[in-house]
């Protein structure tokens, strides 16, 4: 059924459809509507799970840890400072191999206080062992939460679905809300084979010695790589049931493009509009949208990008003293190729500044016409 939903509500509806057993969360702007709607769904009996209204984000993820250990399907949602506060627990949950799913609604990190979107909060969690999937529309938010459960439960890796604060979280769009029985087909009840069994005396997450620890991490890495294939299988199944197809990277007009934008999140849909205009103006322009950040889709990138192309990575995030984070990752993924495209980094829209069609076209021209800096990122601001 098609409904007009705000991004945050698309996430809550997906959690209800996934029949999550335990939700634990703490409010933060711009995440609040996610948990408010879950409260409403619970109060009206439309969602049968338990909602633990914890006193902090750190405890929110701790409660997910406990519930997931007991074999429950779990969920939480946060943003910015809240996600940063959760950081310790993100590592722990991943190390414990629990298929927890959460959404992060991108919001820049203070100081100073800042409310609007940028991706530094989620990308700062790069090394926690969580999968990360970035969304460009409210439909994608709903679908990505369902996909995230499926991939997380098949790999025993936690998954974070990420979308832009306000730009998506508070924007209403028509969303196709799938029927419950179709979702049940895609997402059968969780059977976590390592679930805590009080009848057996189990020691969980006890002190490990260096050798087993190293092997556990190697196994985790292997599963993270395997997640790319699992994602493909899940996407095939998703397409069969729901008719929509998702890929780890989504090229738009890339085949014959001379210069490409690389974007993620809501900016990716603005970028498609910019590419349409550039094409109309006679330019061979394309856009590559990054959906998966972890696992990093290096093989897909190597296959899609051509050595003769110029690539402009637009990062709404920044690693101080170095680069935009997608740009960094992109360079490292392509470095081992004998022939590789030129990669240029642009920083734009930090703290929620607009990334407009005009700005994206300017970035494309700067790159295409050789004015961009190949070594250092260029900071771009829409002057309009």
């Amino acid at each position, binding site marked *: 059924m098609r409904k007009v939903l705000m991004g945050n509500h698309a996430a809550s509806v997906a959690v209800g459809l996934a029949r999550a057993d335990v939700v634990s969360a703490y409010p933060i702007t711009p995440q609040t509507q996610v948990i408010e709607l879950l409260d409403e769904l619970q109060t009206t009996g439309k969602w049968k799970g338990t909602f633990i209204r914890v006193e902090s984000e*750190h405890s929110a993820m701790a409660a997910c840890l406990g519930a997931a250990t007991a074999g429950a399907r779990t969920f939480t949602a946060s943003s910015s400072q809240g996600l940063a506060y959760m950081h310790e627990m993100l590592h722990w949950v991943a190390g414990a191999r629990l298929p927890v799913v959460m959404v992060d609604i991108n919001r820049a990190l203070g100081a100073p206080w800042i409310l609007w979107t940028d991706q530094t909060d989620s990308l700062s969690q790069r090394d926690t062992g969580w999968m990360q999937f970035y969304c460009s529309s409210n439909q994608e938010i709903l679908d990505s939460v369902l996909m995230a459960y499926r991939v997380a439960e098949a790999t025993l890796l936690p998954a974070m679905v990420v979308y832009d604060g306000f730009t998506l979280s508070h924007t209403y769009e028509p969303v196709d809300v799938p029927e419950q029985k179709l979702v049940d087909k895609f997402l059968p009840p969780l059977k976590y084979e390592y679930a805590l069994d009080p009848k057996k005396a189990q*020691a969980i997450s006890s002190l490990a010695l260096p050798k087993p620890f190293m092997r556990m991490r190697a196994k985790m890495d292997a599963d993270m790589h395997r997640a790319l294939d699992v994602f493909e299988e899940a996407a095939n199944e998703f397409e069969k049931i729901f008719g929509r197809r998702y890929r780890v990277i989504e090229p738009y007009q890339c085949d014959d493009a001379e210069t490409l934008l690389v974007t993620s999140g809501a900016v990716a849909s603005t970028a498609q509009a910019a590419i349409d205009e550039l094409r109309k103006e006679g330019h061979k322009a394309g856009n590559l949208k990054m959906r998966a950040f972890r696992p990093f889709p290096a093989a897909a990138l190597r296959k899609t990008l051509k050595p003769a192309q110029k690539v402009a990575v637009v990062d709404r995030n920044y690693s101080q003293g170095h680069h935009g984070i997608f740009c960094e990752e992109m360079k490292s993924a392509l470095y081992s190729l004998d022939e590789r495209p030129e990669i240029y980094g642009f920083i734009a829209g930090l703290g929620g500044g607009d990334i407009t069609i005009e700005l994206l076209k300017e970035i494309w021209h700067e790159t295409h016409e050789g004015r961009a800096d190949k070594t250092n990122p260029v900071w771009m601001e829409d002057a309009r």
Partner: protein
Amino acid sequence: MSSTKEKPKKPVKTSIPMEEGLRSGHLACQGCGAMLAMRYAQKGLGRKTVFVTPACCWTILAGPAPKLSIETSLLQCPFATAAATASGVKAGLVSRGDTETQVVVWAGDGGTYDIGIQALSGAADRNEDIIYVCYDNEAYMNTGIQRSGGTPMKAWTMTTQGGSQRPKKDLDKIMEAHSIPYQATCTPGFPEDMVKKFQKVRGIKGFRFIRVLSPCPPGWKHDSGDTVALSKLAVETGAFPLYEIEDGKFKLTKKVSKRKPINEYLKKQRRFRGLKDKDIEEMQQGIDAAWVEFEKRS
């Protein structure tokens, strides 16, 4: 070989259950009060129990993976999270249809008084259906004796080498302010009292809090043979009153009609060796004043 003619022995009636929840080969120091505490807690709680343990001595005492020194499941969790993790375990078990298993936090004083107090307060405030046990050895003993909020006034630790300058935080009062269904104190020197309380909490729903005073030979600097004696002296001197608060009603479970002088408790512990007569006198006055209140309330 036993003769078939032999009469079957009458089962011995013990004041505490015979069944042991501890396995041999644990990693505790000699004379560890926290090990005795676990032993008696298990006798009261029985097997339908899952422990949730944050960073504390019991992170080690439970044994390195894949070993376990108790007969009950134990989930390790990060330092600040015990009460929140346990809330999740309970919700997860209930969602799978298990409403019987008791989820029990087993945490030290650092993980309770200090870094874990936010999660503890949150879980108590939500009246989560869990049992929270703080085995209180009055400092960060697992990391090598640093001061915690549970460290008594004037006590030596590695971070209060001139003696702690602040009184022990009154955690029980903080917990009482949360209006929880049950809270109690106990110590392994009084095993019947302790086991009884742990048996009793199984039958109560909602958030239950038990603080167990656990002497620690390396941290308190006492002879490892004195653990039980100190546990008893703490009660007999009135330094550690045994009580319970059920639905707001305070009751002393051990009335100490004639309290021993506090110095009998202090002098066996070298962490208090820097105390002057004046300090001991002040401590004695503090205990006497507190007991006027305890007796009034009971």
